[in-house]
């Protein structure tokens, strides 16, 4: 049987009226005799965290249906990466989730290293853990500040952005950039560490536990915060699994799935940390889970830094066709310069095959699926971003919710539109 467009409820290309895409019609009369009201939330609404539009069907103040419309920030990263060599794609991954660029870099770089079968030195792996956990803190701090700002605790963002500034300064010392870091390289790190870096991280680690206490003092027992978050946006464990949620959205519902524990990458199996779980699956539980994740991230950074502080082993995979040849010899010997030139201009040929590698991003499972045809560019690269999949649960959560709770529901998923739209 030949499938037709009408059979699948596909919109015709000339049809731009969005009202038909929802099941409830505008003219539909409710049992109370009232009419359904359509409300357009966004794309400039501040609590949509960028450019997302949510179409709401309302019965009074109760949401009957909701339809999130995304894609305003779609840049075609997957298509573009089919025309870039493997080392050139790393900067593109910065632009996915721009509050946590090192984690995107890591997810991509680990997938490529898995495809190449490359072993990275232990010291580089520890430094990757430190940078990724700092970036997880930065991501959670942005989330906490803006989520509380949406709900009405205006002053939270002043506190959280203060600590995020310290993390951004650490990134600046480490790699020269603050937001789009382009930090990870295939094979490790090719440049030496700056002198002041460890002292800067130590300073941050010293003050941070007290700062977390400041946040929880402001929010955890705050009656307004409790009234706005407790029992709102409940996701059952079955729904969370079925909707493919990951990260704090899944663990807030009590399902223990953290890739750092379930399928350890880097050196996470040698570090001591715990995975916090929620109990009721509401907005408040997801808040508690993320705050506890910040404490655990602090614990991980401290352990990793204590272990690796006085280490001076190499940070780059040695003598491999896949990593960038060292810069040192390029100025003095012709052979080194030629090797460097050929690597930069031609890249390397990856083995034929396909891999999928997932890491535990601050927002959930960040997976890269690379199909290689043996060339120097990926034949197909799929980016599975956590917040795109997590946002799919919003219509389910919003059914029957109050209009004022919509900002809490959007905030609790922790979306960044650069990552949703890719």
């Amino acid at each position, binding site marked *: 049987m*030949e*499938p037709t467009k009408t059979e*699948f*409820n*596909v*919109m015709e*290309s*000339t*049809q*731009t009226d*969005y009202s038909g*895409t929802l099941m409830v019609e505008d003219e539909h009369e409710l049992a109370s005799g009232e009419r359904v009201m359509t409300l357009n939330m966004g794309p400039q609404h501040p609590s949509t965290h960028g450019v997302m539009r949510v179409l709401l069907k309302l019965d009074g103040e109760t949401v009957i249906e909701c339809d999130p419309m*995304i*894609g305003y920030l*779609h840049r*075609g990263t*997957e*298509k*573009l990466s*089919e*025309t870039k060599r493997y080392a050139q794609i790393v900067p593109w991954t910065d632009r996915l989730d721009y509050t946590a660029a090192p984690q995107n870099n890591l997810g991509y770089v680990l997938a490529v290293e*898995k*495809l190449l*079968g490359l072993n990275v030195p232990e010291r580089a792996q520890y430094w990757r853990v430190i940078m990724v956990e700092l970036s997880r803190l930065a991501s959670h701090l942005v989330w906490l500040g803006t989520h509380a700002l949406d709900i009405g605790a205006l002053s939270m963002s002043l506190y959280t952005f203060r600590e995020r500034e310290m993390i951004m300064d650490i990134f600046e010392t480490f790699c020269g950039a603050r937001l789009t870091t382009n930090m990870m390289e295939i094979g490790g790190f090719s440049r030496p560490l700056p002198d002041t870096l460890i002292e800067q991280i130590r300073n941050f680690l010293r003050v941070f536990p007290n700062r977390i206490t400041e946040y929880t003092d402001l929010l955890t027992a705050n009656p307004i915060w409790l009234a706005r978050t407790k029992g709102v946006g409940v996701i059952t464990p079955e*729904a969370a*699994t*079925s*909707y*493919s*949620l990951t990260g704090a959205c899944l663990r807030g519902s009590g*399902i223990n*799935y953290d890739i750092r524990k*379930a*399928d350890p990458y880097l050196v996470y199996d040698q570090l001591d940390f715990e995975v916090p779980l929620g109990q009721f699956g509401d907005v408040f539980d997801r808040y508690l889970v993320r705050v506890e994740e910040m404490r655990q991230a602090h614990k991980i950074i401290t352990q990793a830094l204590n272990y690796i502080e006085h280490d001076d082993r190499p940070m780059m995979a040695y003598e491999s066709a896949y990593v960038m040849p060292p810069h040192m010899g390029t100025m003095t010997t012709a052979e080194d310069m030629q090797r460097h030139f050929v690597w930069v201009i031609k890249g390397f040929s990856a083995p034929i*095959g*396909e*891999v*999928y590698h*997932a890491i535990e991003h601050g927002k959930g*499972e960040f*997976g890269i*699926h690379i*199909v290689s*045809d043996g060339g120097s560019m990926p*034949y*197909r690269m*799929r980016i*599975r971003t956590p917040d*795109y*999949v997590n*946002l*799919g649960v919003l219509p*389910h959560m919003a059914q029957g919710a109050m209009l004022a709770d919509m900002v809490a529901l959007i905030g609790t998923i922790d979306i960044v539109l650069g990552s949703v*739209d*890719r």
Partner: protein
Amino acid sequence: MTDGENQKSNAVVTTGTGWERELYYDDDLSKHPVVRELSAVFPDDFLDAVRFRNETTIYVTPARFRDIAMYMRDHEKLQINFLSDLTAVDMLNLRTAPRFDVTAQLYSIPNRVRLRMKTSIDDGQSVPSLVPVFNGANWMERECYDMFGIFFEGHPNLRRILLQDDWDEGHPLRKDYPTRGWKDFPVYNKERTIRRTKTRWTGRGV
């Protein structure tokens, strides 16, 4: 908690039962529990299994794509209950037919193992939707339709998601779609009405 519940919620760790986690990573693919089960239950529709970099890919026919996913989800021991990702690969440059590979990344939370399930379809052929099995497939299949033009039979709401609804240039992630799109893009200053200015680096104007 009774013994039965305990077994259901945890991975089976006793040796010699045929369901150990090591068997999922064994070099001999016929020992893989999924391969063993599917070749017994779906002998005609389970086509092939491939191992690369410690990852297992199984190939199934498009007709039973949903049934096999449902079977593995509800199986007492396999418990592949989580859909990580669903996407497609346009195989235009790699083989003549069929055109697309629809790829589902599955995961078992109790057993902690990944599995990639693939099915090959031609252009215009439809795949059974996974939405009745996993709700999370909804948006993934919408994106797959948006980017590749693959129809998912039984999807409740199959329309474009990332591109706008009146996008009339086709499906961008197909291999025959140029990176810059089909439309002409405007060329700035084609008639050179604006004078060229020399830059420090190139010595010539822009």
